[in-house]
């Protein structure tokens, strides 16, 4: 503890150099924090998902339609509490860029399967009674200024029986989802209305959402559902929510290895910078270190002094960098690529790297300080 002033003085011996080194490490950790945060977030996406929800899609691919008649078979599989069919109507509101997704489903079952989505009971009642009704997510309602009672036109590519592709829905309610705000961008409509009005693919769905009582039997139920439709024309693939979401993310490609490559390049570059600065700083201080040894400092203590200096520099910079990254991380949510808070394990991982960085950049100069011969070092003066 008594050596702290000594280490401090050593660090600030060349003020400009220390600040510049500090800043370059800070920047590296900002990059690391944001990139690793996005990667971790993507990997952990769906981690908070409900283990008692399963998704049934076509085994051919997730956009291949399934017959809606599968619903009654699925609900009869032991362990299944409830199931809802989901067809999707993808379209746009006012401008082509304003993409909206209307989920054609059984609204009562849907809201029972997603208890996080909060809607007033009378609005849900209104939806079951209004054929062309829709309950919209709170984010959409805010974005487009929709109110209950509005009739909203949606442009789609789905042909209706009347030969047009424009659909209209009447807003009968708004739901919110405080824990999962990203889920507030859907529109829940009646399957019967959409299915009877569309010209193609009638009687088909895009997926079934299945609620089960006991999450520990998820694997067994998935297998049971898939076995029920094995060897039919439309074989199914049933996954729990986490697997399903992870599968979607994996399609983005190898985000993880891209991030790792960039972070690797950043830290390699940085190692060179810090390592060089530390070596330079020790080289300049050889006479001072020799004096320390001459007045009785052990070899080990001098080595430790140099190492501590490196560790202090690296961990302080890492901390500043990670905190800055955490501060700007919510911007990634605005871009729609990650969440609102930086995952906690990124801090732990970052500090671990900071220690490694300090060791690798600090060890060679520390070793040099260790082997320093007092007589030679002082004579060179």
């Amino acid at each position, binding site marked *: 503890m008594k050596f702290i002033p000594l280490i401090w003085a050593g660090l600030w011996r060349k003020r400009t150099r220390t600040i510049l*080194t500090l800043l370059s490490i800070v*920047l590296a950790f900002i*990059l690391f924090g944001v990139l690793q945060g996005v990667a971790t977030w993507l990997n952990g996406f769906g981690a908070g998902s409900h283990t008692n929800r399963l998704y049934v899609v076509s085994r*051919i*691919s*997730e956009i291949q339609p399934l017959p809606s008649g599968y619903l009654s078979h699925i609900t009869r599989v032991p362990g299944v509490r409830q199931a809802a069919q989901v067809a999707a109507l993808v379209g746009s509101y006012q401008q082509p860029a304003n993409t909206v997704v209307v989920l054609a489903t059984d609204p009562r079952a849907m809201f029972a399967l997603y208890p996080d989505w909060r809607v007033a009971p009378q609005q849900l009642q209104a939806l079951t009674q209004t054929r062309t009704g829709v309950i919209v997510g709170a984010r959409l309602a805010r974005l487009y200024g929709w109110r209950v009672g509005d009739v909203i036109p949606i442009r789609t*590519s789905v042909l209706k029986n009347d030969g047009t592709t424009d659909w209209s829905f009447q807003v009968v309610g708004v739901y919110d989802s405080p824990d999962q705000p990203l889920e507030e961008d859907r529109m829940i409509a009646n399957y019967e209305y959409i299915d009877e009005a569309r010209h193609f693919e009638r009687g088909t769905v895009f997926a079934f959402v299945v609620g089960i009582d006991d999450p520990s039997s998820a694997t067994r139920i998935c297998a049971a559902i898939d076995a029920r439709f094995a060897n039919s024309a439309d074989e199914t693939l049933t996954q729990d929510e986490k697997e399903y979401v992870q599968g979607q993310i*994996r399609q983005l490609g190898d985000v993880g290895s891209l991030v790792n490559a960039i972070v690797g390049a950043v830290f390699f570059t940085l190692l060179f*910078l810090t390592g*060089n600065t530390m070596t330079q700083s020790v080289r300049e201080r050889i006479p001072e270190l020799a004096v320390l040894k001459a007045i009785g400092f052990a070899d080990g203590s001098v080595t430790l002094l140099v190492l501590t200096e490196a560790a202090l520099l690296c961990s302080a910079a890492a901390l500043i960098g990670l905190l800055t990254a955490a501060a700007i991380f919510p911007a990634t949510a605005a871009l729609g690529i990650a969440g609102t808070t930086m995952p906690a394990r990124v801090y732990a991982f970052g500090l671990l790297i900071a220690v490694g960085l300090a060791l690798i950049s600090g060890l060679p100069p520390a070793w040099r300080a260790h082997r320093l011969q007092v007589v030679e070092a002082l004579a060179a003066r």
Partner: protein
Amino acid sequence: MGFFQQTGALSLLSARSLPQRLGASCVILVGIAGVVGVLVSILAMVTGLLQIANRSAHADRAVVMSSGTDSETLSNLSRDAVRSIADARGVRRDANNRPLASAEVLVLVHLPLRAGGSGNLTLRGVSANAFALRPELHVVAGRMFNPMLRELIVGRTAQRQFRDLQVGRRLLVRGAEWTVVGVFDGPGDQHESEMMTGVEVLQSTFQRNAFQSVTVQLDSAASFGEFRASLAGNPSLAIEVLRESDYYLHQSRAFARLLTVVAYLVGSIMAIGAIFGALNTMYAAVSARSVEIATLRVLGFEPGPIVTSVFAEALGLAALGGGLGGALAWLLFSGHAISTNGGGFTQLSVPVVVNAGLVGIGILWACVIGMVGASLPALRAIRAPLAAALKAT
């Protein structure tokens, strides 16, 4: 001595003393190589993505889909609509006076990837005229599929990306067995990441009546307006008509833009870090030479040439580092392909294309870093009071 002579002499001097400051100089070199390497690598993916789009696209072809969508996956066209589109004005006809048009159906098939895991591969059902329409596609192994049978041919890129697609292999799709009978290649376009088969067989297997898109060969690139006008006059059609070139560019634009933003964002943050590194190095260089520089000033060298020589050293190192970074990106990644989501739900294999233009951008970036990194130390070199600087020995 004039400005240029002085600068020349000083630059030579600092170049000769460079080996003594090797460690510090390496910092600039490696730091900048790292920045440029990352920047060029990411931009090379953008280049690859746009290259696919460009090679898939021909200005004298048009793609027609149902209105309200910009992706074939979501489109639906009835048989009547397909007939009207093929018969529209502006469509080129073959020797038998049949329109050069291909009505197509897309099915995504979930298959195991060579790299592990699985992905979606497009199985495109095409009309008889599809290969007359796209003369750039050739069967390079095996043979063409028989449109009456459950046979398919595989694009070369798709074959490299997915497992078990060799000629002779059988695939189980929707309870039916399909045989891979051939491999086709093209100019490195999007179709190379697909499989193709006869459209009727595909429709009957999947019990579909509708088509998803029609691609037509226009009389010439200029006939597009006529073609579109002829279709717009038909009130029974709710369709979207696009030039093929616009369609494919539109497909990859969003992803290309995102990657470009990432490239320059990461590149800028790293560059600032590298500027700090360069500042450190140049300060060290200037301070190591402070006596030397002061002596030069006493001997009558002007501040201008001294500053210029410091800049010249930083620029030289930076340009070298930039070139090194570009070369590294080329060595490590060029020719590789990155598997990603190609818009919609399908896997696309994006080649990484490092070309001279990108390396040029990298070197330019490097020179900016070098210039900024040298500016403050150069000022310090000439600002130091002569007497103090000389006494520092």
